[in-house]
């Protein structure tokens, strides 16, 4: 079989280039948008995904990690009574007002009070062990590399949070927060920084359980008891999902992503289908001649669809190369970007779907390839 679709694509590449670029940029836009959204909103669950707690206990109705309320400190004993639980560790979240050494104005910070011992659960995956032990020092804090400029501070310098003096003992990486700056300190330091007199217990209790795959069951079991005041429990996975979804929908970003995906698809499909239609129209007499010679319309449609497929594949290839390069650049600049397999698959489906829709649109103009029109 003569490879008409491919040979035409190569020989008349200038004709097909706009379609390839349209498909490529549609794919690239979608890819970067998804990676950014996943990166940015993924950081809202960093407190959970960066820690090794399996079950989280907090105030009922909590919608995201950042909007917790304190629970009764005695809940800890109740959690420990569950036979599945190995360890429980308090986690204190304090919203703070930062006043740096330089003139930075007020900066909103999220203070995370954690257990600084070497086997602590909180941020066990995100915080280097050396930095963690340094937090045991009173009023010691660790800030993220991405926030150093924003806070106007460097290692060894002092600043105040909620009017209390703190000093920076280390700079971490990968702890970028959304809507503020993460500051890590010990539980004791966090209690001192909390100015709210009503707060008495921890914001959360983080538990390690014997069989992490039973987190859902354990969380459900812990939920029933109200004897120590209001609290509830989630598996870490569930709570992380809750936090990301809250941010996605609270900020309207979720709708934005879908909206932009629709626009990208539409614009890409319009440009691509117009290019393919022009290509079909440019060869309509040749197609009509083939039809006169008995080559069926179905076979001609396959040629057009095959061209659309190659346009999609080439666009995808370009988008992948550029996308990987841009994502690497973003990573090196501490821009939160995350790309996982479902997101990459979504992009591939979008791009190939766009090419397919355009091919189908172009196929319609084959109807003009009526051989009788050649006899005029």
């Amino acid at each position, binding site marked *: 079989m003569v490879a008409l679709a491919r040979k035409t694509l190569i020989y008349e590449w200038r004709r097909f280039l706009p379609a390839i670029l349209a498909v490529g940029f549609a794919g690239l836009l979608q890819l970067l948008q998804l990676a950014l959204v996943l990166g940015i909103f993924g950081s809202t669950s960093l407190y959970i995904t960066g820690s090794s707690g399996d079950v989280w206990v907090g105030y009922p109705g909590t919608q995201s990690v950042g909007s917790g309320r304190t629970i009764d400190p005695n809940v800890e004993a109740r959690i420990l009574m569950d036979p599945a639980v190995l360890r429980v560790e308090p986690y204190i979240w304090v919203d703070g007002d930062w006043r740096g050494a330089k003139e930075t104005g007020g900066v909103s910070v999220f203070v995370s009070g954690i257990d600084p011992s070497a086997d602590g659960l909180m941020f066990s995956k995100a915080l280097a062990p050396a930095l963690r032990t340094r937090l045991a020092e009173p009023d010691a804090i660790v800030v993220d590399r991405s926030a150093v400029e924003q806070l106007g501070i460097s290692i060894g310098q002092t600043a105040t949070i909620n009017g209390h003096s703190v000093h920076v003992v280390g700079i971490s990486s990968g702890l970028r927060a959304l809507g503020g700056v993460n500051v890590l300190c010990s539980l004791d330091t966090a209690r001192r920084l909390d100015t709210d007199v009503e707060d008495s217990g921890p914001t959360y209790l983080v538990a390690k359980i014997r069989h992490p795959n039973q987190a859902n069951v354990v969380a459900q079991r812990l939920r029933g008891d109200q004897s120590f005041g209001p609290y509830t429990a989630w598996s870490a996975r569930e709570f992380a999902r809750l936090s990301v979804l809250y941010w996605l929908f609270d900020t309207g970003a979720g709708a934005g992503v879908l909206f932009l995906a629709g626009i990208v698809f539409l614009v890409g499909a319009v440009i691509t289908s117009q290019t393919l239609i022009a290509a079909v129209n440019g060869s309509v007499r040749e197609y009509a001649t*083939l039809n006169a010679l*008995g080559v069926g319309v179905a076979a001609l449609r396959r040629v057009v669809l095959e061209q659309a497929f190659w346009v999609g594949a080439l666009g995808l290839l370009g988008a992948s190369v550029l996308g990987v390069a841009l994502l690497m650049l973003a990573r090196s600049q501490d821009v939160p970007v995350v790309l996982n397999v479902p997101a990459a698959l979504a992009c591939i489906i979008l791009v190939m779907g766009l090419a397919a829709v355009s091919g189908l649109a172009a196929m319609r103009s084959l109807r003009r390839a009526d051989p009788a029109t050649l006899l005029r």
Partner: protein
Amino acid sequence: MSTAIATKPSHSPALRAEGVCKAFVSGKQRTQVLDRLDLSIEPAELTLISGPSGCGKSTLLAVLSGLQKVDAGRVLALGSELGQLDPRALERFRLQHTGFVFQGFNLFPALSALEQVELPLSHMGLSREEARRRARESLEEVGLAHRMRLRPAELSGGEKQRVAIARALAKQPELLFADEPTSALDAANGQIIIDILHRIATTHGTTVLCVSHDPRLVVHADRVLAMEDGRILSDRRNHASVADSHGTSS
């Protein structure tokens, strides 16, 4: 294809039109292009339909080749009534039995001469080797053995039309339709094309039906039908041209 020829009695016409009518409607204007036309085209001959433009000769070709349906009457091609075939069966009929040569050469810019000829063959279910072999033979027959690898942009108008003829010829059709095959060409190239068409009729036994208003072709045809206003005005055989054309082509 050879079996189709064998089963067909040699004396019966390859194409027959019986009381064929065809009209075109544009707005409120109705133009009767073919008016109760009867016609038989014999096999292994080059039949030329000539006449002024607008006389209906291209419409007659479209109707006889099954590219257009008739309003009334019937068309028999190789014993099949074309009006009875659905569009897919018509495509199949054309694939198996007919070749076309158009005024514009209609070659794909991306393909070499050899690929142009191979393309329809590969849709006929021939093996790659068989398609390649037939394509070469046909291109050799039209005198393009040395130009097979070239694309249309590298070929002259006459050469392009010869590629188009080879494309039709390689299918080994019983019926070959040509619409104004020489009007885009100069005298010398037009002469080459008409000689090739005539040779195809005599050596392959193909029914060649050619429509043209080019007066130079008249002397080369075996039979000339003059058309005007949708009717055949005259029908004459041109015995001298057969010998003539044999002389020039050998």
